[in-house]
C-alpha cells in the first residue's frame, strides 16, 4: 500500500484544485518561504482525521478554508483527497471449507474488475489488500463548508470519521507522532520529558 497522490482545492492557500503525485520513492517539496509547503503537510493530517485546529496551525477549524487574497474572494469549501494504491497482494490462503470458497469466488468476480495482470483470485490464494476495500486505489476525502458542515468520503461514498480510522487500523497510517514530523518539531522529541517520549513509543507499539 502506498500513497499515490494528494488533491487539494480551497484548502488554506491552495485556492485552485492542485494535484501532487507521489509516484517516486523520495519526493522533494521545495519553494520560497510562505508559499504553501507546510500547508501540504497540514492537508494530509486533516484528511486523515486530525480534529485539532491548533495542530493545523489555525484558531478555528474554518481557518483551513481558503480565506481570500489580494485578488480572490474567500472560498466556500475546502476539499482534500488522499489516494492510496491498494494492489492485490497474493498471500498464503488459509484452507477454506467448500461452501465458503464458492460464495467467496462469486462475490469478488462481481464487485470490481480486477487488474488484467493480477490473477482472478483462485480458491487457493485469497485476494488480500492492505486496506479492507476491494479496489486497486482507495481515495479518502474530507470536505468542510463555510457553514461548518463537514463530510468524509471513501471512494466517493459517504463515510464517517470512524470508518476512516477503521480503514487504517494497524497499517501505520495516521496522524501520530512518528510518521509525520512537522516543521520545527524534530529536536522536540529529545526535549520532551521522559513521559512524553513514552507516548511516541506507545503509538508505535
Amino acid at each position, binding site marked *: 500500500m502506498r500513497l499515490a497522490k494528494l488533491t487539494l482545492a480551497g484548502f*488554506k492557500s491552495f*485556492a485552485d484544485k492542485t494535484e501532487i503525485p507521489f509516484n517516486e520513492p523520495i519526493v*522533494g517539496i521545495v519553494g520560497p518561504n510562505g*508559499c504553501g509547503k507546510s500547508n501540504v503537510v497540514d492537508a494530509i493530517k486533516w484528511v486523515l482525521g486530525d480534529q485539532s485546529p491548533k495542530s493545523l496551525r489555525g484558531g478555528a477549524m474554518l481557518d483551513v478554508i481558503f480565506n481570500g487574497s489580494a485578488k480572490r474572494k474567500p472560498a466556500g469549501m475546502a476539499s482534500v483527497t488522499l489516494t492510496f494504491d491498494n494492489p492485490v497482494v497474493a498471500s498464503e490462503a488459509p484452507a477454506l471449507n467448500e461452501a465458503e470458497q464458492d460464495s467467496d469466488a462469486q462475490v469478488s468476480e462481481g464487485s470490481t474488475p480486477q487488474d488484467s495482470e493480477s490473477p482472478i483470485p483462485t480458491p487457493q490464494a485469497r485476494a488480500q489488500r492492505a486496506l479492507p476495500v476491494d479496489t486497486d486505489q482507495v481515495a479518502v476525502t474530507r470536505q468542510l463548508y463555510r457553514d461548518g458542515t463537514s463530510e468524509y468520503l471513501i471512494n466517493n461514498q459517504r463515510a464517517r470519521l470512524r470508518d476512516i480510522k477503521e480503514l487504517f487500523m494497524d497499517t501505520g497510517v495516521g496522524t501520530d507522532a512518528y510518521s509525520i514530523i512537522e516543521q520545527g518539531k524534530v529536536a522536540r522529541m529529545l526535549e520532551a520529558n521522559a513521559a512524553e517520549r513514552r507516548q511516541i513509543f506507545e503509538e508505535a507499539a
Partner: protein
Amino acid sequence: SRTRFIETFEQVKENFAGEQGMFRKLFGGGRAELELETDENGNIDVLESGISIRAKPPGKEPRGLSQLSGGEKTMTAVALLMAIFKSRPSPYAILDEVDAALDEANTERFINVIKGFLDKSHFIVITHHKRTMMGCDTLYGITMQERGVSTRVSVDMKDVGADGTLLDTGAA
C-alpha cells in the same frame, strides 16, 4: 499489550543504540542508550515508566542531552525516529525541514540513511537544502505566482541554483 510494549521497546532500543544501530550510522561512531526509567525504589513498571535517552557523539563526553549542539540533537532525534520506523514501518513518512540545523556532511548522512528505508515506505521531504534536493527522486515546487495563492510547478534539478533557490519560477 504489556508484552507488545516490551517487544517494541527492545526492538527500537536495538535499532537505535545497537552496534549497527541508527545512532552509530548517523554519527559514524559513538554510543547511545535507551532505557526505561526506574522509579524511586529502583523498580521498572513497564506500563508506566518514562523513557530516558543518552547520546555520546564519537570522541566526546557530554553530560546529558542538553549539552549536545543543535545539529547533534537533530541527528539524535532522526536516529530515534528511524529506529522506531524500522521496527514499525509505515507506508509513508513526511519530514518538514528536518535538515534545517544540519551542516552539509550531516545532511548527506541523513539522506543516505533515508535511502535505506525505501523497500518499506516512501518519503516526502520538504527542504531548502540543495544537498537534500539532490537526494530526491523527483522535486515539486510550491510557489505563489499570484500573491496568496499556491500552485505546484514541476522542478528539474537544473532549475535549482547552487544555494537551493528555485530559479525562474516567478514567485510573487
